């Protein structure tokens, strides 16, 4: 009988409650944070980040934290050392500042200026695409990298109507989903074309990554063969940089404007020991020359708008695209 009582007591003690175990010891939280980034962040070597040094600088600050907010700020500042707009920390009471990849660049773009001063007719909208013509050129503006599935049918219709070239405007597009792009570009190639490669993290070590995993565009049943200029600026980020890099692999395509903001990483979310959520980049994208686009995609023709250009209703980047296509 005593054994039964002992077993029952043991059982009751071992019953889990419905609460989470949260740890608020600053040292433990910081170590959990630091270790997660250390084992998962993919760009440590590409960006020459000394993450051990980050530990030496920020751990004492974390240990001295007297409030959750202070500890959160220490971790947020440590995360900014990655210089990665895909890395973030969230808690119930705050969001970490996101690394500003636009810093140091003059970025001036207004779709209103394009629509009011250059388009032959008001832009039509389909999903996140705005499209019209500029004389005998087609113009398609990607506001976001989402809901752009009608792109090929829009361009096909323009080709039927006799356009001589196409301007794809990606400026100020902060990203979205680039996964449909390889299939979408099948109409712009007449042979299998390497668009770029993914690299994925496969373990906790710095070099625990896959071989480059190539992505191709294979020729589709319909073919569109016109010269294309892609307008980019520093506000193009993430999936938009992927798109620009993939487009640059195509024949007849030129990138015009500013270097994009980069953002090659696909991010991975994780709950830290105290409940905060952290995200870091765990994959990379290489362009067709095998170069990472994390730091941005370079234009073939560098040109920028100034603030006074836009205030004066002039878009020099667009004008350059028109000249290149005429």
């Amino acid at each position, binding site marked *: 009988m005593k054994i039964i009582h002992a077993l029952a007591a043991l*059982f009751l003690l*071992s*019953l*889990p*409650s*419905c*609460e*989470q*175990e*949260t740890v608020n010891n600053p040292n433990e939280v910081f170590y*959990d944070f630091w270790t*997660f980034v250390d084992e*998962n962040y993919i760009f440590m070597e590409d960006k020459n980040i000394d993450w051990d040094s980050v530990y030496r600088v920020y751990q004492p600050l974390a240990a001295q934290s007297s409030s959750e907010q202070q500890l959160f700020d220490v971790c947020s500042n440590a995360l900014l050392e990655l210089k990665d707009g895909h890395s*973030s920390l*969230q*808690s*119930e009471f705050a*969001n970490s500042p996101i690394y500003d990849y636009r810093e140091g660049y003059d970025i001036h773009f207004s779709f209103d200026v394009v629509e009011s001063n250059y388009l032959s007719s008001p832009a039509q909208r389909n999903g996140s695409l705005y499209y019209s013509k500029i004389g005998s050129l087609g113009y398609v503006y990607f506001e976001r990298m989402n809901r752009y599935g009608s792109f090929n049918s829009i361009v096909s219709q323009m080709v039927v109507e006799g356009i001589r070239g196409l301007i794809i405007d990606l400026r100020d597009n902060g990203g979205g989903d*680039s*996964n*449909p792009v*390889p*299939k979408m570009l099948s109409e712009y190639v007449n042979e299998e074309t390497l668009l770029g490669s*993914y690299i*994925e*993290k*496969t*373990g*906790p070590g710095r070099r*625990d990554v*896959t*071989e*480059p*995993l*190539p*992505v191709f565009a294979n020729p589709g049943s319909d073919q569109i063969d016109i010269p294309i200029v892609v307008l980019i600026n520093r506000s193009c980020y993430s999936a938009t940089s992927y798109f620009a890099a993939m487009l640059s692999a195509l024949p007849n395509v030129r990138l015009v404007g500013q270097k994009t903001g980069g953002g090659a990483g*696909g*991010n*991975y*979310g*994780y*709950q*830290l*020991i105290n*409940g*905060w*959520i952290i*995200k870091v980049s*765990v*994959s990379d994208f290489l362009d067709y020359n095998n170069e990472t686009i994390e730091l941005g995609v370079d234009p073939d023709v560098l040109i920028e708008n100034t603030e006074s250009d836009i205030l004066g209703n002039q878009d020099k980047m667009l004008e350059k695209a028109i000249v290149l296509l005429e």
Partner: protein
Amino acid sequence: MKKTVLLLCFNLVLVSLQAQDETKSVQIGVRVGVGFASLEEKRFSSQVQRGVLPTYSMDIETRKNRERQHLSINFSLTQDYTNQPTLSYVLVFPEVRYTYSRSLNEHWYIGGMFHSFTLLNFPESELTEFVNNSISYTLAQSIGPSLYYQRTIPNQKISFESECQLGLLSYVVRPAFAHPYPENYLQPDVFSPDRSGMMRTLFKGGKLWTVNNIQNVLINTSTSYHLSNWKFSTNLAFSALRLADVKPFSLHQWYFGAGIAYKYMKR
């Protein structure tokens, strides 16, 4: 080591089936219960997540001469397992257990078991998106020994059963390090960012693990009341599954259930 364990398991599971033309008893039942579960999944959290899992089960047991076979199919689904502001996830947990055993005497049976374990998690946060690990899965197929004990009190109306199962060899499928992809999907000419063709590689992407890497235990006790062909039972079980992966996983669960079964004889 793996070969020895494999042979041992198969010997335990595939005990010779001696054809004997005698009456077989069949028992079919359903059970409902709740599991008090403790889940540690290092793919998306450093915390031990605790919650209650409603579980629905179906059991089929057959007995013939000295042999006993038992198939148990369990299913759990919960929409918000953690009930936390920073992380919640849908948890889907189907499970199949099959045991084949032979009696050593009136009370004891020994044999082998097959356990198919699947756990799907879809982590979500109100604060942010989980992108590259928006789904986490663990599939484990284990084989190993099982031991079963039964005792019926003299009036034959109340019986007590207890069972212990231990997985010795397991085939485990888990996502690659920081992705929803299986490892063998991350190969040139296989990988596609839109995940097309991933299912084909999923089941080939597992690893054969022994008790060094995976610990899989079930201890189950039940008390039943027999009325004519019907059996009313309650059971208490403890199960533990622990994977020593690069990103470790463990699920411990205390389970309380109640069920009803119908028993009939078949020639």
